[in-house]
Each structure stands twice: as structure tokens, then as C-alpha cells.
């Protein structure tokens, strides 16, 4: 039995080791990414790599500090911490400094702090505290509304500060809620909504509706294996569409075919719904419901996007989804990023030998696109090591969260794991063209004090909580 009183003996050193390894590899790659012949020393403090070393040392101090705080502190003060950082976030529009179009930084002396980064940890503490409280019941309206308030107040503020990337991160708390018993359907619907939304904006709604209709028939066929009835259904759908088209053709009308498709979808859904009622097939009724809901959602998203939103809002969403066809825009950057990584090959070009990152083909090569340098100079093997480290860290965090008897620690642990996961998935995804270009950093790798410190804080609060797993926490 380990000594329950010795915090240092109970720390999970595997997690700490992965953390240190990530920071070190990140630092080396920042050096390579912005390597400057006139400042060859990696300890040159006028350069980003020198500064990053200072951030790393400061981060280690923060880590040690967290270990030395009593774990009960985080439980007791989770709401006050949440409120304080929320207040700081509210102050940003008034005392903040604008950088790259986002007014989300507070300048203290020479340091720039981004309260939205620290809001992730504060919100995690608040969620953990609320879910682990006795009066929390997952499917009660009161509990869900309170949770929604805890999450959406900071999200709204961050969104208003033009820092869309950081705001979207808060979506991962759905995974935490799922682990704590949220109905899987909610997760499924959230996924469906995001999918339909993105699909509608990328393609036009005519295509979206067709795809939805075909998917619905396909799913119906896969579940029920009734070929004949499926064909009849498709016939009805096509007939309704055809009648509208013919009328329009005969009166020489000039109506968008989208409306025929919409009419066909609504009318045939009504017919199929009655049919399902007659047959007493509830699953069929549910499928039709989801289908009709998706169709209406897609059409309304399209309508809102095209007719209600302002141009700059449309631009921002387009930019977010990386669908600007302009080669000098987002698409260009992703292309250059893919070229940099793709040219790395199996073993990479070798340390400091990258050409794409060094010649400034890749933007933000030390912050959001740091993974390009890994891919270019260390190749597929280097990329595997980085992905492996992340997977090691994330699965370890889940393991640690699960071994804690305290619900507070477990919920917080999941928050940490899912936040890190979201950053990992979106950041690396965008460098290889699988995710929209959302400017969020790769944890422990990207250049910058604010993000490194906030991730360190986030992680080490959990490591500290985990080190106290043998104590019987009240929550």
C-alpha cells in the first residue's frame, strides 16, 4: 500500500514523463520552425525558441506549485475560481489588447495572457463540482439547464471576442456528459446536426436534400430488408417531385427545383408517416421524423446563411470550414501545410533541413502549424511518435480518471482528456487537411506562454487530484 500522505510518491510519473517529453520535442521543433541563422543558439532569448524555454521553465514551476496545493482546495474553490476567471473574461473587451483581429488578450507588463485559455480549466472545475454534487440528476431539466449555463456563459463571451476557435473547444464537454450518463441519442443528434450543418454550407441544399433522402431510404432498407416497399416509397417520392416539375414546365413557371424537392420530401414523409402508423412500426416513424427534421434544418440553415447573415459572418464561417476557393486564403495554407508534411517522407528531411516551413511557405509555423515541422523534418516516423505520445497521454488520463473513487476527480479527469483530445484532433487534422482551419494550438507543442501555462494548469490540477486518490474525498 503506497504511503497516502506522500503526495510525490503518489503522482503518476508516466503522465509527467509524457508531459515533459512533449514540451521538449515541441521546443526543438519551434527552434527548427523559426530557425534563424543570425541567432543560432537555441538559448537566444530574443528568439521564439529562447522565449519558449522560459515559458517551459515557468510551466514547470506552475506544475510544482499545483502539486503542493491541497487537493481539497480545488474542490472547495472550484466555483470561486470559475467566477474569478469569468470576471476576467468579461473585463477583456475593456482592458484587452487586440492581436490578429481577436481582442482576447490581457497585457500584464511584457506578458500577454489569454483568459479564454484559462477558462477551459475553470469551466472543467465547475462542471466537475456540479456533476459530483448530490442534487445533480443527469436528465432533470434543472440540472441540464444549470450545466448549460456553466458552459454557455463563457462560450458566448469568447465567441463575442472573435476567438471562435477557443469557443468551439467547449463542445467536447458533451463527451464528458456522455461518460456520466447522458443519453447516447443526444450525442448522436449533436453529431448529426454538425454533419448536416457542415454539409449544407459546403454543398448547396439541393445536394444535401438528395443525400438525406437517399440515406433515409438506404437506412430503411438496411434495417427492414423490404425491397418492394422501399421501391414503392421511392416511386411515391419521385412521382410527387415529377408532378410539381411538370406543372412548373407547363405553366412556364420559373421556380427553383429545390422547392419541388422540399415539397416531395414533406408530402412523401406525411404519407410514409401515416403508413408507419397503420403498420404500427415505431422505428420507421422515428426514422421519418429524423429525416424530416434534418431536411428542415438543412433548408433553414441554408436560408439563414444566405439571406439573414451578413457577408462578414458568412466569411467567418467559410473561413472556419476552410472552403474558400481563393488560393491565397485558407485553402492555400492547408495546401502548403500538406506539401510540407507530405514532402517529409518516411524518415523526414532531418533536423533543420526543412525547406517548406523555413522558407515561410507555411503560416504560423511555430504556433498553430508546428506539426508541419514535425512532419517535414522527422517524417512519418516522427509524426507517429507525436501521435503516439498523445494517445499515450489520453488513454492514461482516462485510466487515471476511472481509478479515482471521487466523482469530482473522475469528471475533471475526463474534462482534461477530452479538451486535450479536441485540440489534438482539430490542430493536427487541419494541418493534414482533415479538419477546418481553426486557430487553436497543439497542447505542449505550440509556441506561446499563455497556452502552455493553461494546459499545464489544466493537467497538473488533475495530477494533484489523482495523487490524493487514497484519501476519501467528500465528493
Amino acid at each position, binding site marked *: 500500500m503506497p504511503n497516502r500522505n506522500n503526495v510525490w510518491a503518489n503522482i503518476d510519473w508516466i503522465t509527467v514523463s509524457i508531459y515533459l517529453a512533449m514540451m521538449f520535442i515541441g521546443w526543438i521543433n519551434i527552434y527548427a520552425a523559426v530557425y534563424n*541563422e543570425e541567432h543560432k543558439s537555441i538559448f537566444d532569448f530574443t528568439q521564439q525558441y529562447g522565449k519558449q524555454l522560459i515559458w517551459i521553465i515557468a510551466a514547470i514551476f506552475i506544475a510544482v506549485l499545483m502539486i503542493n496545493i491541497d487537493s481539497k482546495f480545488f474542490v472547495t474553490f472550484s466555483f470561486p475560481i470559475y467566477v474569478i476567471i469569468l470576471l476576467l473574461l468579461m473585463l477583456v473587451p475593456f482592458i484587452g489588447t487586440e492581436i490578429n483581429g481577436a481582442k482576447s488578450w490581457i497585457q500584464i507588463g511584457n506578458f500577454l495572457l489569454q483568459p479564454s485559455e484559462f477558462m477551459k480549466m475553470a469551466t472543467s472545475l465547475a462542471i466537475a463540482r456540479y456533476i459530483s454534487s448530490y442534487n445533480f440528476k443527469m436528465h432533470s431539466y434543472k440540472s441540464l439547464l444549470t450545466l448549460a449555463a456553466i458552459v454557455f456563459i463563457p462560450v458566448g463571451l469568447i465567441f463575442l471576442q472573435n476567438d471562435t476557435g477557443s469557443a468551439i473547444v467547449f463542445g467536447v464537454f458533451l*463527451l464528458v456528459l*456522455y*461518460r*456520466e*450518463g447522458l443519453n447516447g441519442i443526444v450525442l448522436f443528434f449533436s453529431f448529426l446536426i454538425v454533419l448536416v450543418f457542415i454539409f449544407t454550407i459546403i454543398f448547396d441544399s439541393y445536394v444535401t436534400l438528395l443525400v438525406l433522402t437517399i440515406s433515409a431510404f438506404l437506412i430503411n432498407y438496411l434495417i427492414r430488408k423490404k425491397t418492394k416497399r422501399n421501391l414503392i416509397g421511392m416511386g411515391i417520392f419521385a412521382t410527387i417531385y415529377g408532378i410539381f416539375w411538370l406543372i412548373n414546365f407547363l405553366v412556364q413557371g420559373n421556380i427553383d427545383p429545390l422547392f419541388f424537392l422540399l415539397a416531395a420530401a414533406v408530402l412523401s414523409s406525411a404519407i410514409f408517416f401515416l403508413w408507419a402508423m397503420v403498420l404500427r412500426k415505431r422505428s420507421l416513424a422515428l426514422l421519418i421524423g429524423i429525416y424530416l427534421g434534418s431536411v428542415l434544418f438543412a433548408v433553414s440553415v441554408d436560408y439563414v446563411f444566405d439571406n439573414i447573415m451578413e457577408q462578414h459572418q458568412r466569411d467567418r464561417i467559410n473561413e472556419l470550414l476552410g472552403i474558400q476557393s481563393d488560393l*491565397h486564403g485558407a485553402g492555400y495554407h492547408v495546401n*502548403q501545410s*500538406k*506539401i*510540407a*508534411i*507530405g*514532402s*517529409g*517522407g*518516411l524518415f523526414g528531411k532531418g533536423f533543420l533541413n526543412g*525547406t*517548406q516551413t*523555413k*522558407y*515561410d*511557405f507555411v503560416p504560423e509555423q511555430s504556433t498553430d502549424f508546428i506539426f508541419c515541422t514535425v*512532419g517535414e523534418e522527422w*517524417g*512519418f516516423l516522427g*509524426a*507517429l511518435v507525436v*501521435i503516439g505520445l*498523445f*494517445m499515450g497521454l*489520453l*488513454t492514461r488520463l*482516462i485510466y487515471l*480518471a*476511472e481509478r479515482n473513487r471521487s466523482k469530482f476527480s473522475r469528471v475533471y479527469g*475526463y474534462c482534461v*482528456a*477530452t479538451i486535450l*483530445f479536441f485540440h*489534438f*484532433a482539430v490542430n*493536427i*487534422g487541419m494541418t*493534414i*487537411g*482533415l479538419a477546418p482551419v481553426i486557430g487553436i494550438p497543439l497542447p505542449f507543442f505550440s509556441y506561446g506562454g499563455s497556452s502552455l501555462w493553461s494546459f499545464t494548469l489544466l493537467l497538473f490540477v488533475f495530477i494533484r487530484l489523482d495523487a490524493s486518490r487514497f484519501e476519501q474525498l467528500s465528493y
Partner: protein
Amino acid sequence: MDTFSKRKYIIAGIMLGIAAIFIIRLFTIQITNKTYKQFATRNVLRKVITFPARGLIYDRNNELMVYNKAAYDLLVVPREVKPFDTLSLCNIIQLEKKDLIEALNKAKQFSRYKPSIVAGQISPDIYAPLQEKLYKYPGFFVQSRTLREYPSKSAAQVLGFVGEVNQSMIEKDNYYRSGDYIGVTGLEKAYENELRGIKGVNNYMVDVHNRIKGKYNGGITDTTAILGQNLLTGLHAEVQAYAELLMTNKRGAIVAIEPATGEIIVMVSAPSYDPNLLVGRQRSVNYGLLVSDSINTPMWNRAVIGTFPPGSTFKLVNALIALEEHAITSFDRFSCSGKGSLPIKCTHSHVSPIAMREAIRESCNSYFWNLFRNIISHSPTSAQGFEVWRNHVLSFGFGEKVGTELSSEVKGNIPEVAYYDKYFGQKKWTSMTIRSLSIGQGEILITPLQLANMAATIANRGYYITPHLVKAIQDTNRVYRELKYEKKLTGIDPEYYNIVIEGMQAVIEETRLSQSIRMDSVIICGKTGTVQNPHGADHSAFVAFAPKNNPKIAIAVFIQNAGFGATYAAPIAGLIMEKFLTDSISPRRKAVEQRMIESDLMNVQVKN
């Protein structure tokens, strides 16, 4: 534990699933798909600097004194070099193989990423075949430069030269990169910021064969070069060249100033050199030879860095001070017993006693030490009297940098009270202790430029405009910007100048100088000086201006080891003034001209 514990597998599964998708994606773009590697090699960015032509330098008649000719530099980026046939490249650029290898090693040492110059200043006829074959040599590329050309081959030290920047200059000003040119001396240095223009940058994508494949990012990051600005100087190229011709085989300096504007018309330092020597691939060899010539020191601009006692030319200043301080009137006479005079003997024989006009004409030493004594003793103590004298001297621009654009200019020396107090002891010296100052000898040191400025001040009857070489700058839109220069007053009444000027006219018209320099059409006013030289033959000095009314030129000529001022300095000054004022030399003076050009004073016996 709890009912939802199994969900940890679903969450971990989502994470590992995403990681697996990433790994598959990375595998395709990094290993199976080769197109990205091709893109990357196509993506090599090359910054090609376009160098703006350096600004031109014109003389006062819009004659070109400095212009540009085309040249090319061969550069190399060591990291991109592939093995190549060194010998054939050497043949094209006419370089020894070992020099090429040495240059490549140096480039490697400097930087593997950044371009270095392998062969600089390649002429257009070598460039043509080189450009054709360049694709055979990856890593090498050419950038065009401009070189200076000096059509009149004159005014070398004034115009200065351009050379490659050194490390400390690069660190001081981030405009410069290794291999850039910068003005090192003269006007090229003084107006570097105006002359250099602004470099342009073109970002190109080049392929593995070193061929430009198009502009990076559609050219939005490119900048165009902006031409250097032109300098319009007050120099007279033709007269300058003529003055240099007259100074053949002589050591010394000539400065001529337009009194009304302060524009420097002529500035000669002899011996000089052909400025074209410091251009092109032979530059460093020639530069070494010129710098190491410690006997002729052709790189020195004696007009601004040479200091000498002014000799008798300085008597003019003393006369003016005496009149202004009412230490004497123009009618006061002092006696002179010629070579028997004490304490300073007079070198000329003339009637005695004499007043100011004649004293200036005869350059009578006895008269001037008496005059000097009157200035000093006009105040209660010698120190106070000296201070009054000194302040007047400083008002002529002596003892300080005159303020031309040439940074090498020196102050000269006008001694201070403290100097004599230290040397002789406080109150232990009188006007007679320091009497050599009365005839422009002793501790006083001036530059030829300051002497010319003195002549201009007298010509203006009491003020001078800061002497300068450049009067206007022509910007890139071909608009002239006139430069403003300060007017400085001496504080001596213009009436007194007229008295001294009468004496100066007498110097030209009533002595033997009337044969060598007097002109029929123009009244010249001047003063000779013979500067005692403890190291060898005396130096010959002469100041003058002409015409007497509305002077157009003021001049100082200083020739080392040439003896009496009247012998060489005065005739040379006369010829230059005549050339400037009338554009030609009258037949009557052709013989003088011939004698001046042919005189060789380089090997005059030097006393030990």
C-alpha cells in the same frame, strides 16, 4: 463502480479512431503519394534582390560627374549546389579554379542557406554566355548590379568611392546584406541614404534545375526597387579637371568657393588618383595599392584634413580685427627696417614707415607685429586681449569644422589662453611672446578649406555661407529639393573689409604678380603667403577672390615645398580663376600655364 463505466471504451475508441485516421492519412500523403515531394521541390523560394541604380552626381552645369554602368554578381546558395563541372564554370566567368573553390568554401562557412557572392561585378559580355549555361549549375544565380563610372576621372577624394559593406555596417543598419555596396568616403558616404535608393525584392519559386517557375504567392509580396536620388553639386567639372592638371607632380590642395552661395567650385587634393580604379573586379587590388602608398597618400583629401599654419595670408584677418577693435586706423604707420627689423625681420624691401594698404601689399612683418601688439594691448590684460582676438578669428570659421558634407574634415587649431598659461605660466606672456601669430605662424593650424572660406568671407565683406558641395537633391520624381545652408556673420564692419580689399587689389596690381596673374577684364584681389616649414622647403600659399565687386569665386591654393607664395600658388590660383570666369586662358598666359603644368615639386630636397 457505476453503470456507465463501460462508456470509457467508447470514448477511448473515438480517440484512437481519430488517431488511426490521422495515421492512415499521414501514410498516404507522406509515403504513398509522391506528388507532395514534387510540389516541395517546385516550392523552393528564391529572393532575388533588385538593386536600384545609385543616384547620379552632376556638376554645377549639369555635366555628369558620376554615373552607372551595368554589372552582374554570381551568387551561390551552398545548400542547393549539386556536383558540377567546376572547370567549365571557371572558363565562363574567367576565374582560377582554386579561387572558385575558395569562394565556395567561404560561402559555405558564411551560411548554407543564404546566398553569397562567388564572383562580383561581372561585365555584360561575360554575363551573356553565363546566363545561357546557368541551368547546369544548380544553386548558382545572377543578380544585376550597377557600378560607378567617373567620366572626367577627377575629384576622386571629393566624390569618394563605394565598396562592399563590412560586418559592423551590416549590424548597424539592417538595410544592408553581405555583399551590398555602400559609400565609403566623400560624397558617396555623406549622401549614402539619398544615393542608394531602396532595394526591391522579387520572390520567385524556382525548380530543382534552378529555373524560375513563377512568382511566389502571385507576386503580392514583391517590392519594386526605387532609384537613388541624384546630387546636384556646385563643383565645376571642367575647372576641377583643369586645377588637377595644374597640380600635376605637386603636393597640396586647392579649394574654390562661390562666395555668395558657399558652393564649392573646386576641391583638389594632390597627388590624386583616377576614381575609376576603385570600380570593378580590380577594385581590391587597386585599393590596396592606393592605401599602402604612404609617400603620396593619394586617398587623403588634403583640402579638409591637411593642416598648416596659414602664413602671411592670415595677416588679412589680423588687419580686420585691428580695425574693428579700433586698435589702429588705416592711416597709422609703422616703421620697418627690412631685414634688420626686430623682433621679426621683414622679407621685403620697401619704403618706411607704411600704413595698412601698403603693408598688405608688401606683406610687411614689422607692420603686422606692431598691429598685433596693439590688438592685444587694447585690453587690460594680455589674456583678455588674446580672448578678444581669438573670438574674432573663430568667427571666420577657423578652429572648428567648417561644416561641409565631408565627414573627414578636421578642426585645425587656434590656441587658447589656457595653452599659453600652461606653456609660459599665467600672466607671464605678452603680445610679443606670441607675436608669430601676427604673421600666421606659430601654433595656429588651418585647413585649405578654411583658408578658402576666409577668402570667401572677405569677398562677401563680412559673412560666409557654410561651404558645401551639394546644392540640391533631385528626388525620384525628378523634382529638385534645394538644400539650405547657414549664413554666418563675422561681426566686423563691412567698411573695414573694403580697406583690406584695397590692399589685396594692390597685391595683384602693384607687385610682380601683375605680370603673372593680373587680368585685363576682371579685378582680382589676393594675398600671398609663404609658410615656414621646419622639415623642408617652405610651403607656398595664396588666397584670392575675383571680381572685386560681386565676387564670383574665392580661392585658396596651398602647395607644399613650393617656396614663395608668389612663385607657384598665385599663378595657379590666377589660372583657375581665369578659367572659371572666362572659360579660357588668354594667350598672354599660356607660357605661365605651361610652366605650372610642367613644374615637378615632388622631389624637392627635404631638410632633416
